């Protein structure tokens, strides 16, 4: 198998999908620069740089999809998704329902997400659990190049609106431009297995709603997405030395949830530790608790999430985002309860 960087994998999957399906177009700010290769290959008619008008171009992408295209509309950072939120909340997510299933909205909303490179609280949010609250949306968060390409392929095979989030710490080009990777002394805690890895020659879609067990363990189940999966894996190695055996689930899809996988693992371990870079309250971490309880699975439960606005200072940022120490501490605490 060939190896690609995370961002390259996404581009590669898009390249293959766009070659096969003329209905796929890309819309977004600066895409003539950000997606230069796609623009050069597929032409200016299919890769459309926009004005800074997220409400209009995301709204337009919804009806462009209804009119027969399959747009990939880019909202640079998921932090900016409040700007075009109505188009997502009240249009994209609801039109299939309103039309009684007669009219679908095949649309990928792509955005960069996540923190850990010192860009402050308006540029490092995750918001996947927040978006998942809206019925009608699929929310995808890959953690490896393999999944990044496979989930983009799946998103483009899906006949409905999909939020596709690309973590900046995994994505070389984004980290370079937003984190200032060009300088000598900037250093980021990039998970190597997330940033580069093996990918198939021809992309196959990964089943939406299917998580994966990244590590088998006995004492507790750690559930995460994106960069937090790698933090959890790193923490698991630390725990191993303390004779704690952690199972690590990578959800890959935030909505719909892979309930079976979660319930199965937690039934076995009896403990759930959610590691979520999105805000803690009223989001993914709570939903996972409810999911197990609804299935009648009792458990001990803990979570390591982002509890408040992300501070700019690298030190405070480190403490605020889920990190290996916090995960290890929470796991030890949970196992000893």
């Amino acid at each position, binding site marked *: 198998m060939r190896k690609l960087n995370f961002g390259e994998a996404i581009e590669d999957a898009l390249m293959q999908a766009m070659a096969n399906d003329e209905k796929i177009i890309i819309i977004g700010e600066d895409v003539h620069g950000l997606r230069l290769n796609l623009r050069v290959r597929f032409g200016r*008619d299919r890769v459309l740089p926009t004005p800074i*008008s997220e409400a209009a171009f995301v*709204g337009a992408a919804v*009806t462009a999809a209804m009119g027969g295209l399959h747009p990939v509309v880019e909202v640079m950072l998921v932090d900016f998704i409040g700007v075009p939120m109505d188009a997502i909340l009240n*249009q994209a997510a609801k039109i299939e329902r309103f*039309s009684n299933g007669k009219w679908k909205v095949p649309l990928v909303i792509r955005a960069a997400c996540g923190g850990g490179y010192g860009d402050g609280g308006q540029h490092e949010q995750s918001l996947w659990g927040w978006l998942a609250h809206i019925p009608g949306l699929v929310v995808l968060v890959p953690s490896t190049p393999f999944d990044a390409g496979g989930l983009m392929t799946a998103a483009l095979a899906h006949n409905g609106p999909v939020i596709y989030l690309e973590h900046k710490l995994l994505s070389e080009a984004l980290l370079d431009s937003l984190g200032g990777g060009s300088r000598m002394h900037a250093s980021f805690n990039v998970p190597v297995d997330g940033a580069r890895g093996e990918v198939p020659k021809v992309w196959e879609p990964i089943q939406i709603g299917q998580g994966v067990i990244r590590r088998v363990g006995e004492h507790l189940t750690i559930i995460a997405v994106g960069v937090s999966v790698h933090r959890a894996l790193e923490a698991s190695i630390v725990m191993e030395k303390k004779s704690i055996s952690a199972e690590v689930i990578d959800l890959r899809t935030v909505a719909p949830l892979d309930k079976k996988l979660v319930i199965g693992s937690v039934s076995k371990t009896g403990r759930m530790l959610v590691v979520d870079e999105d805000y803690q309250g009223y989001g993914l971490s709570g939903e996972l608790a409810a999911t197990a309880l609804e299935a009648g699975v009792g458990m001990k439960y803990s979570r390591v999430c982002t509890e408040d606005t992300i501070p700019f200072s690298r030190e405070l940022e480190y403490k605020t985002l889920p990190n290996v120490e916090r995960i290890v501490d929470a796991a030890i605490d949970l196992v000893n309860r």
Partner: protein
Amino acid sequence: MSFWFKIKPATRFVTKKGMQMENPVEIQVDTVVESSIKTPGPDSWHLYLEMLRSRLYEVEVKRLWQDGAIPGEMHLSMGEEGIVVGIVDQLIDGDAMALDHRATTALLVRGVDPVLLLKEFMGRPDGLGGGMGGHMHLFSREYLSASSGIVGSSGPAGVGFAIANQRLRPGKISVAFFGEGAVNEGMMLESFNLAAAWKLPVMFVCKDNGQAVVTQSKKVTGGNLLERATGFGLRAVEVDGSEVEEVWKVANGELRRLRNGEGPVFVYGTCVHLEGHFLGDQLLRQAHLSVSETIKMAASLVKAHTQSRGAPLRERTASLRETLGILRESARIHRSKEGDPIPILRKKLADMDADKLRQAEQRAQDEIEVIIQRATAPVEQLEGGQQ
């Protein structure tokens, strides 16, 4: 193509008011007047009947709403038929429409089945959207038409349809309808720019009825809307919404330009709100208040006007006067019906051929009755017969 064409099969039932349709005699509908698309000028008879049918249909919608058969809010398009018919009459297969909360006339004229539409208003499982959408969320994939209850959202929606048409159906265009209040909504303004920058085949149609709920739009709008549109690089034209033939003519030229890829246009038309903002509009009700209601409302107002601590008395009186002024103005428009496009054209046609007019109107009335009967028949009765 007349709007009830979409009753499937395309039939008209010979029936009498209130008569049970046990064994209706089916007669193929002959369109009263041929579609005017190919004619050099507007066909006034045709346009009149399109407007009239929509009006009659909405009169029934109003009745059904008042009877409680239609839930929720109900915004009629009564008063804006001139603008809507003058444009939608000229749309063809592949053209798209992005609609606001007053979608009825546009959908009817475009050809959406009036029975399915009315059933949707009533929330019936056999309605256009299976009762899932309701009157603010109407969708016809066949006619590439989508409505939304979010003010301003028809701007981006029109742009999106135009993007799709530009690529998949060259020569086909999209039309976005909205009120003057929506032109202060950011997504609408952004979509003007996007359309201009990308030279999209979209016609933005602003139906200015002067009011947005209880707000007189002039008071909260800076500048002039035609100049505003021009400031985004849009071509901008003005029409008088009380003159459907004029609208038709202007639209005819603009649609040609659009189909030729000459870029987007902003069509600004004035019109009236004949039924207030929505059915049961408080403004209209308050303008016709019962004595007890007046006293009740007055009591809290009197208190607000006189209680200690607050603005100076002069200011209190001025603000009271202002709101009462809006009430009165609203009632005046409602009473005068000035600007209603239907009587204006009717007078002209009556002068031309009063007999023909009477007959055509009777036919339209009959058709509406059939529609209402079919739309209000119990669900069971139709199963099997309905697709």
